[in-house]
């Protein structure tokens, strides 16, 4: 069966959160398409809703309204157990704070996603291969507190990709790293994207990082900003004139 060229299709997504007795609208009707294999940068100031949008795309949060299709699966109202399966199979996520499990070694952290569907018969081997791929062959048995920030992020990337998902979501992956280390991590992501055919959606507030991506969409106060083309590259290529979005 041929894969759709659009791997993420979000339509009119909204997300509201309670604050005291009020509802705060974090996202206000976001429509977004991401093509397979594309690297999309999601930018915007603090509080614009970037991380919230990423959380929706990752399936770890549920939209208040709208619809969201990920790799052909409508995850908008999917039950939690099925959503978990989608997260395990199709999505890898990397965080600014790495979020490694401190009691496990690097290898064990990378193995964790494999236990869900009991694909752990070769867990050790697969984890070692992935860690080698990210350049941490010699640090497999170290626990997070024994690794540098860059190394921890590499472990997190390895963990995110161990199940060979089609989508990698990254929330400010270089935010806690120095420039040089951050560049190395970005280069790694770029290499893995090419090798594994990943679609990458990366939240960043760094314009330099955003320019490295294939496309940038900008969020402001929960909306995609006018003036920046949120359509995938193929659509832009077909119709180069920007439409003003309301």
């Amino acid at each position: 069966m041929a894969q759709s060229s659009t791997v993420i299709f979000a339509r009119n997504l909204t997300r509201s959160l309670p604050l005291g007795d009020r509802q705060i609208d974090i996202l206000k009707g976001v429509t977004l398409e991401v093509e397979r294999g594309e690297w999309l940068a999601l930018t915007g100031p603090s509080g614009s809703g970037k991380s919230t949008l990423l959380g929706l795309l990752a399936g770890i949060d549920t939209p208040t309204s709208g619809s969201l299709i990920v790799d052909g699966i409508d995850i908008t109202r999917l039950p939690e157990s099925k959503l978990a399966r989608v997260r395990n199979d199709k999505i890898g996520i990397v965080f600014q704070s790495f979020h490694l499990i401190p009691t496990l070694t690097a290898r064990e952290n990378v193995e964790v996603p494999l236990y869900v569907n009991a694909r752990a018969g070769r867990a050790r081997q697969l984890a070692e291969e992935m860690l080698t791929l990210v350049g941490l062959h010699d640090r497999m048995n170290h626990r997070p507190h024994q690794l540098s920030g860059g190394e921890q992020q590499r472990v997190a990337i390895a963990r995110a990709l161990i199940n060979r998902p089609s989508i990698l979501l990254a929330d400010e992956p270089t935010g806690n790293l120095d420039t040089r280390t951050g560049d190395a991590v970005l280069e790694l992501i770029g290499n893995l994207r090419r090798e594994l055919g990943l679609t990458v959606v990366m939240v960043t507030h760094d314009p330099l990082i955003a320019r490295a991506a294939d496309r940038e969409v900008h969020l402001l106060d929960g909306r995609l900003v006018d003036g920046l083309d949120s359509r995938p590259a193929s659509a832009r290529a077909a119709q180069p004139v920007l439409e003003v979005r309301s």
Partner: protein
Amino acid sequence: MKLALLTKYALKGIRRGGQRVLLAVLAVAFGVMSLVAMAGLSEVLFESLLLDPRQDIGGDARLWRAGYLTAEQVEQFEAWQESGVVERYAVYYSSNSGPLILTTPGSGRVSFVRNAIGFEAGGYPLLGEIVVGDPAGAAATDLLRQPGDVIITKDLAEERGVSVGDTVLVGSEMGGAPEPLQVVGIATNTPNYQGASLFFNLETARLLTGHSNPLTTVNVIWADEASGDTALEELLSSGWYAHTPDMLSERNRQMRDMMNLLLKGAGILGLMVGGIGIANTMQVMLARRREEVGVLKTLGYARRDILLLFVIETAILGLVGSVLGAAAGVGLSAVLVRISQGFVTLFLIWRPNMPLVLGSVAVGVITAVLFAMNAILRASDVRPADVFRQLPPPPQSQIRSIGTFALMAVPFGAITSLVLGSLWQGGVVLLAALAGLIVLGGLLAGIKWLVVRLLPTFGLHLLRMARNNLRRRGVSLVFAMIALFAGTYTLGFAMVSISGTQNKLEEELFSTGGYNFLVLTGPEGVDEAQAALAEIAERTGIRYETPVETFLIDGEPVGVARYLQGRDEPWDIVVEGAAWGSVENGAYVPAGMAVEPGATIEVVMMDGRVVPLTVVGTYEIPSTWESAVIMTAAGIVTSSDTLLAIAGDEVQTSVAAEVAPNQLEAQAEAIGRALPQTAIITAAEMNDSFKAAYQNLGTFAITMSGLALLAGAVLIANAVSLTMIERRHEIGVMKAVGYTRGHVLRTVLFEYGLVAAIASVVGLLAVLLTVYAMGVVQEITREIFLVPPMLAGVIIVVGVGLTLVVALAAAWRPTSIRPVVVLADRG
């Protein structure tokens, strides 16, 4: 496969869990230890104290008469056996009616024998057995071959330091030279679990009693109930007395229910304490793993996977804690049985009860999971998005928590019912515990709230901080306060009981004044005994005595004690009438007895002879009479010459003396060495024996209270440790701005000192209330159970002191954390 992988993950988490894991394991271990120890003790006591009534009695009935049995009386049972009324019977000698003493030659100290049984091979016992421990496995009847052979129970052997092959002296407390017997065996158990017992053959019984046919008792197993009832009725109407199982059954049932509830109930309460400890610990442990849960869910773990993971983790913690607790409980139950043995004369046979141990381990695991379930459910509900947004966890729904606990109460109720072996008892214990938790919890939380509001800080900043910290503390602290209250209450009540009983005991003890030294010897040893005592005693007196069948006046039995006593001179009685020894065969009757001087009183001897004596006067006990070792005169009194002429070898003699009370023990040893074939009883020894039982009971009470206090200490350690974990960041910040470890520790001590003071004062008030209530119900207790200020102070000091020590120990390491470590965590 997935289960194995989740187990592997859980094990990794446990291995690296550090202090929190230890807390959880200790909490479960305490609970299971309590359960195994209490249930183990209960089972041992059941087995010994609440023997099957038939075995306790020795058959369907135990029968006896006044005096020894005649051949005709025994033949009746043989006839019944032939006719099918009796299935089996055993006739034997039993000393139940007369106190015996046992001593070793030259020791000067005695042991009091509860039971001495003389029997023929194949006769006794009908039910149960005499278990001979030394020589191991020997049969009692094989050992008791010769006249003079005796098997003694282990407690007597240990008390007197006797081994197989040693000679012991056994005699009557009433007097007479004790008989030397050779120990041929030491029994580790008896048919009715009674200790302080001797077993010998009928030949030996003849030696001891001086009676040619010393059979006194018959145990019977009826062929069927109906004929047994008929036979029993016939026996009872012809001068026999009987004990039957029915008389014991109801009493045993009530004792069993009470013991079951008290001991096993205490074990279950200990288990609940452990459960509360693990509930608190898991609450904090899992709260700190919100981020981990968020990550796991992000990686594709479903809620049920998280639930399963934490259930496995808790079950493993529960298993480790339960195994440790079970091992400790086995040891503790052995100690408790040993202590209990000190105040009962029964054999308490302790042996590890594997089904109980294994069952308790299972109960411990299940309890751990049940009590942790609220925390597990809460952890599994974590929403990844909330975690990554660093939003605080939503407030816990009270209704949901209550609902969870209520649901978990059902299986826990099943557990308590299983342990207690009774649905209603299980329900009672559980409801009582829950009601106690709610009422006490509410009371203590309310008092804490009030104290925290009203407490002046005296300008002490650290005290203000402590007060503010207490305001924030929730349920875990209240549980700790409840446990501490329970500990101080039980300790306080035990101390009040022991103190009061001790005071009463001092009043009830035998006086060591007056005739306080008694040498039991035969007529031939009297002169030697008197000569030895003359050097150390202020005064001495000799009593001669023989038991008789009865006394008759005009053919009618006379209502006096069946003893004919003799004196050289009336040293312990005041006589009225003829001068002492002036009338041959003259007898003195108790004053007030309606007999004219000159009347003939016939003495029917045990061998059937009838000897006439002439009443020549009366006697009465002097108002100044004081003696712990020799009873007041009884029966009919005559001159020693007359008695010796009548009774000859059957006379029992004793020489009483008044010795300086502080010399009793030393002189007993000295006289014992000088007169090795005698037995010596002193007032001091009788008091020591009396006090020992109470002291052991006191030790038992204090041990139990100690366990309750330990429960409080466990929960305090749990609460402090969890607080330190929760406040880790706060402590780091405090140190970063200039507070020292000492400041932090002082704050902790203020906090927990306050908490302990509240719990201890409330515990003391509860003791006072209990004592008051007892005084209302039983007036006599008002004089016994008192709470002097000093004792009240001790109760408070113990409660507060223990808490401060535990809190300090628990907070010591966490307060050493470096600020940079903590602040980097939050970077």
